[in-house]
């Protein structure tokens, strides 16, 4: 049965004010049942206050083969971190 069902990615908000975090996936025939399955699978122990499910097929992912082009250039650009800059004495409200 479940092999015939599409896969859904599950996101749980742990408490109000937090963002939803990806926790895993479930198989389900449609969005409503996916929410039920997500509830039964991932929030049985009070893990959340809100659930999202998204069809896994709708997620566009970066290609692991492009990791070097995508992510490595950021490695040596330490000036993009705020800690790179010295704050002159006497500057407040920052």
């Amino acid at each position: 049965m479940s092999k015939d069902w599409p896969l859904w990615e599950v996101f749980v908000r742990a408490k109000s004010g937090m963002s939803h975090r990806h926790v895993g996936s479930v198989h389900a025939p449609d969005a409503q049942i996916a929410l039920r399955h997500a509830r039964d699978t991932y929030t049985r122990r009070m893990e959340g206050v809100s659930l999202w499910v998204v069809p896994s097929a709708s997620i566009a992912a970066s290609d692991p083969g492009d990791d070097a082009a995508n992510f490595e250039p950021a490695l040596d650009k330490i000036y993009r971190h705020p800690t790179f800059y010295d704050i002159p004495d006497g500057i407040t409200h920052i």
Partner: protein
Amino acid sequence: MASVATDDQILFESLLRLGDDSLILGQRLGEWCGHAPSVEVDLSLANMGLDLIGQATHFLNTAGAAEGKGRDGDALAFRRDVLDFRNCWLVEQPNGDFAQTMARQFLFSTWQEMLFGHLEGSSDETIAAIAAKAVKEVRYHAELAAEWVIRLGDGTEESRRRMAAGLDWHWRFVPELFEMDAIAAAAAERGIGADVAAFRDDYDVRIRAILAEATLDAPADQRPILGGRRGHHGEHLGHILAVMQYLPRTYPDATW
């Protein structure tokens, strides 16, 4: 019977009915563990079963206290015989296939949700408190079961055939849920129990609305099967108890 039953006996019998319904259906759902069509459905069924076992624990512990003979929930669950069980026929029906299990859940949980809604106002504080907690669990059971009735009924030719067969199997056990015998009447009179007959019409409306969404016709009415509340049960309950009670009876007071 109402004329000779004391308040404690009425309370005890009322609690047994509530507890035994939850206990036997919880045990039935537990039979699916490891056998469901998918791991997600396995968890759904086990979650519902555990909710029901939790309710049974509360109701039967309270029943034991009302009886005043030193029996707790475990003693009532594991050391009573078939004739002493007070569950309705519907909950002891076999799981069959997934559609038959969901048809039973739909018919029972819809009723149990309405029942617990009324029992939240019970004059017995413990029953009111258990019902207030459990009604949220049961609302979820009823919603989940209704979703599956709709999907299987309005699904493929095979799923439709199976759901129709499942509903047909269980239909004759529905009238028992609304039976007001002397004990139920006495409990309702005292404000302990609910007048179940009063919400039969609302129940039928809810059931038929879901069946319409599932594009299914309600099964033809059949001769109702009654008597579970008086200890008359089908062939199935003895088998359920044999499995459920084997270990505690063979190894009394075993702990693990």
